[in-house]
């Protein structure tokens, strides 16, 4: 089965990203495919490489990056949502005259069309939010 996963809230503040991660892991373990994980609304905040969580807690961002590397996942941050909230890759930073970028490894920034495409191409779209 081919899954699309939509994550609508940022790391730590809401359980959404944690639940989505647990679901994604279980789906991959069961041999399913994940077509794309799309991060929308505050969900784009999952894609910053600047987090420094407490030593005794999980690292939400690194966990996604590692899962992406291991399973060749497509992790997409919505560009419009990301711009509003200050998530940029190097290209975006340059385009908008910003002196830094903050996107984490394994994530890419793209348009909302990627969400619609995931909804169409996946057998199931599962959403996690507030």
């Amino acid at each position, binding site marked *: 089965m081919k899954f699309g996963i*939509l994550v609508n809230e940022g790391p730590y503040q809401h359980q959404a990203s944690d639940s989505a991660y647990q679901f994604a892991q279980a789906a991959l373990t069961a041999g399913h495919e994940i077509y794309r994980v799309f991060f*929308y*609304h505050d969900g784009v905040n999952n894609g910053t490489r600047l987090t420094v969580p407490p030593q005794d807690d999980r690292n939400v961002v690194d966990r996604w990056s590692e899962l992406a590397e291991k399973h060749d996942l497509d992790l997409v941050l919505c560009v*419009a*949502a990301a711009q509003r909230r200050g998530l940029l890759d190097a290209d975006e930073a340059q385009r908008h005259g910003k002196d830094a970028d903050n996107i984490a490894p394994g994530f890419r920034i793209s*348009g*909302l*069309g990627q*969400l*619609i*495409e995931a*909804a*169409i*191409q996946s057998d199931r*779209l599962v*959403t996690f*939010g507030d």
Partner: protein
Amino acid sequence: MSEEGIVKKLMYVNRKAPYGTIYALESLEVVLIGAAFDQQVSLAFVDDGVYQLTRSQNTDGIGMKNFSPTYAALGDYDVRHIYVERESLEARGLTVEDLMPLTYEDEDDDWAEKESLRVVDSSELATLMGEQDVVLSF
């Protein structure tokens, strides 16, 4: 922009009031982008989502952008099926007269202007939701 000919029934469900949170606005942005994909699209406004469609929204006093005029443009994006739950309206003391008129032009009927918005009761909306391939909930 149809995806290899796949046409799905896709419903956007809006349950939150505008401005207090961004979900209403960013849901609308998905709908506008999604309109290019030639899917069978519908929108449902349920619970506090019905407040998104009120007339005469004026955001001058809160310093935020008034995005409500965009709903009226949905017809131009070929979004023709907009459902509002009757029970949600009634609990809030609202009638369809309190909502913006939402229409589209029917190219098969000499571009006649037709209503996009339809008030449906819970059981009818439940049936519609149950027929969807994909539900995006905001």
